[in-house]
């Protein structure tokens, strides 16, 4: 991935990679608004203090996003249950992906199948495909072994394939 430290401006990098970060943030937050807050906090902190540190920026940012999201989740736990439920519902309704007109139905199907995955499988799949992390990096994020991460990824793909393949009745 391109190194953001080489950019004079954050805009180009954030426009290019921000949507992936937001998708990852939505794994760990209850609403799009929360995910945006998390991405904003993590990215601004990264740009101000961490971009010169070296290493893989996307992995560092995703670690930061997860941390901020967990902190936010702890604070959010104090909210009333009704408010949480409303946010969860609204969060689920927001699309995860761009839906071009020609592939709209297919994208919606994939999205629905993705939402139907067990959270631990969805987490690994999103981090691998759109977070562009390796299994080792995912394992580090989620405190599991790389083999476990790889297994969850394969299970997730297999489950998606089941959901997305039309059943043919002979």
């Amino acid at each position: 991935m391109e190194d953001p430290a080489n950019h004079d401006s954050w805009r180009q990098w954030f426009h290019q990679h921000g949507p992936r970060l937001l998708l990852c943030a939505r794994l760990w937050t209850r609403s799009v608004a929360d995910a945006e807050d998390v991405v904003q906090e993590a990215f601004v902190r990264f740009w101000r203090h961490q971009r010169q540190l070296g290493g893989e920026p996307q992995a560092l940012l995703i670690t930061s996003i997860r941390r901020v999201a967990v902190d936010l989740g702890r604070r959010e736990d104090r909210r009333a249950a009704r408010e949480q439920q409303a946010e969860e519902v609204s969060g689920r309704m927001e699309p995860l992906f761009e839906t071009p007109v020609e592939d709209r139905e297919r994208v919606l199907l994939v999205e629905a199948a993705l939402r139907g995955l067990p959270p631990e499988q969805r987490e690994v799949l999103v981090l691998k495909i759109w977070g562009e992390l390796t299994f080792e990096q995912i394992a580090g994020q989620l405190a599991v072994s790389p083999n476990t991460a790889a297994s969850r990824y394969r299970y997730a793909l297999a489950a998606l394939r089941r959901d997305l393949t039309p059943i043919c009745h002979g």
Partner: protein
Amino acid sequence: MDDPLQDLEAELRLLRPRTLSAGLLARVEEELTGLEAARAAHTVRRWQFPLAGAPRWLIWPVATALVAVCGIAIAYWWWPAIPSRSPALSAQVSAPAEPASAFFKPVAATQFLYESLDEGPVMLSSGLPARCVCDRYVDTYTWRNPRTRASVQWTIPRAEVRVVPVDAL
């Protein structure tokens, strides 16, 4: 991995996550361009104690010495002049006056932590993850003259940056 899974993987990779909202971009822009503008204006947004990079064992002795020197200087400056006496008496009292530092004694030193900012994860050179935590203090030192009850107080801002292994949190 079998072919159908690879096909599905390829299909998933083509999906583009939803673009960022204008609101999010505006908020990030506001925060970051505010920072750039401040830098351009040479505004110091983050103050650090000048010895922040020095070895930790050196900081307190140097700080204490600085405070002592400041105390002595201020004590000399503020110490009220000894009332003039008659020449005869002055002649009798020919012993050198005690230095002002002898009159002022340190009576209090407080340390107030007013902000602890978790600046997020960092990678150590060993490859292990850690978190960078910045603690900001205000240290206050008070010296008092027991004879006149005059007191001098210094307030010194200080930032302490700690790198904490993630496992320790």
